[in-house]
């Protein structure tokens, strides 16, 4: 987790500019007015806490996403951008291909990041529903793409049905994500045949509510939890109680704490997921 500024550091123009600079490119424009409105939702006594949480937000803009995908693919054994140097056939598919979901967006980022946007690469990028008809063998490789692994449950369940059926007999099956929680990655590797590659790993101390997180006191964590409950009573710490402060430019994952992304009558997150 990124370290916040010291307590009671002024919320001045320089600090706001630093946030705006960090969060540039989010799907809903993050401007000064929205930052100020967001912080005003915290009581005056807690505004410093709200600001320090913003300091800690791990934002993945297009460059970081591209870098994760570039290094992720380069690390895979047998891969080469040159067809004649590649081992076996290679096929890429989104893990969550529904319209508007992150999988399709990630596929686009991935192609751009790896210089595979040209038509000649089109055949390598397939729909999940076309994986079987590719008739891939033990010499071949499938790379599934997504943005984030949180608890790992979703990927693990999806592997159980239907992906393990669609990919039976394929030599290597990788999942490349921009970021992953260590616990989620380990779960996937224990429960599936997927090999997970990631650009950034979140560990226990990245959970803002965890004892391992040293940037906030117990009182501050309790106070922050109350705001999170205001934003989402059922999942204040985000899906799976991950307690993360992670935001992707295309969407804030629901594994992040509720104050960041929930948007309802009681709370307006700075990174809404559905607008």
């Amino acid at each position: 987790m990124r370290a916040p500024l010291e307590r009671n550091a002024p919320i001045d123009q320089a600090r706001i500019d630093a946030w705006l600079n960090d969060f540039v490119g989010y799907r809903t424009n993050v401007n000064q007015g929205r930052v100020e409105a967001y912080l005003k939702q915290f009581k005056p006594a807690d505004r410093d806490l709200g600001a320090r949480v913003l300091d800690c937000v791990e934002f993945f803009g297009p460059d970081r996403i591209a870098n994760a995908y570039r290094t992720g693919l380069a690390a895979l054994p047998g891969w080469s951008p040159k067809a004649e140097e590649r081992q076996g056939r290679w096929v890429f598919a989104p893990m969550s291909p529904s319209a508007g979901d992150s999988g399709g967006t990630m596929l686009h980022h991935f192609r751009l990041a790896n210089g595979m946007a040209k038509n000649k690469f089109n055949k390598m990028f397939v729909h999940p529903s076309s994986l079987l008809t590719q008739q891939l063998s033990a010499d071949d490789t499938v790379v599934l793409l997504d943005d984030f692994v949180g608890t790992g449950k979703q990927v693990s369940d999806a592997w159980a049905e239907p992906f393990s059926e669609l990919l039976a007999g394929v030599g290597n099956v990788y999942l490349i994500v921009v970021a992953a929680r260590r616990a989620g990655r380990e779960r996937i590797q224990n429960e599936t045949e997927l090999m997970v590659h990631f650009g950034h790993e979140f560990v226990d101390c990245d959970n803002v509510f965890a004892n391992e997180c040293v940037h906030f006191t117990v009182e501050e964590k309790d106070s922050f939890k109350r705001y999170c409950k205001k934003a989402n009573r059922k999942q204040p710490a985000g899906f799976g109680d991950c307690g993360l402060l992670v935001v992707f430019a295309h969407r804030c994952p629901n594994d992040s704490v509720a104050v960041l992304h929930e948007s309802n009558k009681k709370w307006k997150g700075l990174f809404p997921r559905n607008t």
Partner: protein
Amino acid sequence: MSDEAPVARAIGVKNVKTAELHQNPHNPRLLFDRVNMDPLEDSIGRVGILVPLTVYKEKKTGRYIILDGQRRWMCAQAVNLPTVPVNEVEEPTLVQNIVTMFQIHKLRLDWELMPTALKLELLMHEVNDKSVSRLAALTGLDQAMVVRCKKLLSFPKKYQDMMLDANPDKRIKADFFIELYPVLHDRQIKQYDWFKPSSFTEAMLEKHKVKKLKAVTEFRYVKQQLNNSVKARKTVVMGRRLKEFAEDTSLTIAHLELVTIKTATTALKISKAAKELYDAVEDIDTDEYYGETDMWGTLEKLSTLIRARLKQLGRRIDK
């Protein structure tokens, strides 16, 4: 069809450690009912496995994969049998494996339909045959299941992907597309110049997402309304209502209920039935049916009811 036989070549019989066997990824494992396996488990516990399992060695991992004998293997595990007899065959091709699994496990009702449909797609391509009856014979699936699979495969890949989505909240059930299919292929709906299957499908998905479709079976009602509009010659108004229904996410299927259509359809139905009854009664030889008191009683009731309705209408009935 490819030159390869749809079965794997035998290698030989031997004993393999039970723990070294793995279930086939194309096996519909959800169908194994523990209760039904008790007698088999009891038998294997007493006399061991008499019929060898059929397995192959996976080239990728070197693991033994079960082609046939999953139940026997599960029972062997349950009774802690250290080894099991196996008949090893060559690793089948994907198509061979799928055909074998289809043939062994004919019932796949508990499974998501889309993976089955995709396997069928692969087989159709390999055997170059789309005949429902022949595919049913090849796979052991019943013909209705093959038809359902083919309906799913008729949808563009982006919709097929939705049925496979890793996110269960986003995954669309196969039933949605199966129920939508007759609407998209309705002869009347294709006549509307505004109608495009892709945009109509998108509109219905959006309705489904915002829960303006209570159940996917509501597509049957849409189809019925389309049918009725044709019968009642109200296709123009139906087209307008249907377009509004598709374009406005907030509208429910109640918007499609046209009273005039409903009335006209019922009227047509009653007219047809009345004519048939008229012809039947006219042909009756009263002497021959003299003792059919129930029939005469029913006709008398009907006559009274018809007279009452005609009277309500102000029609002259005493002729």
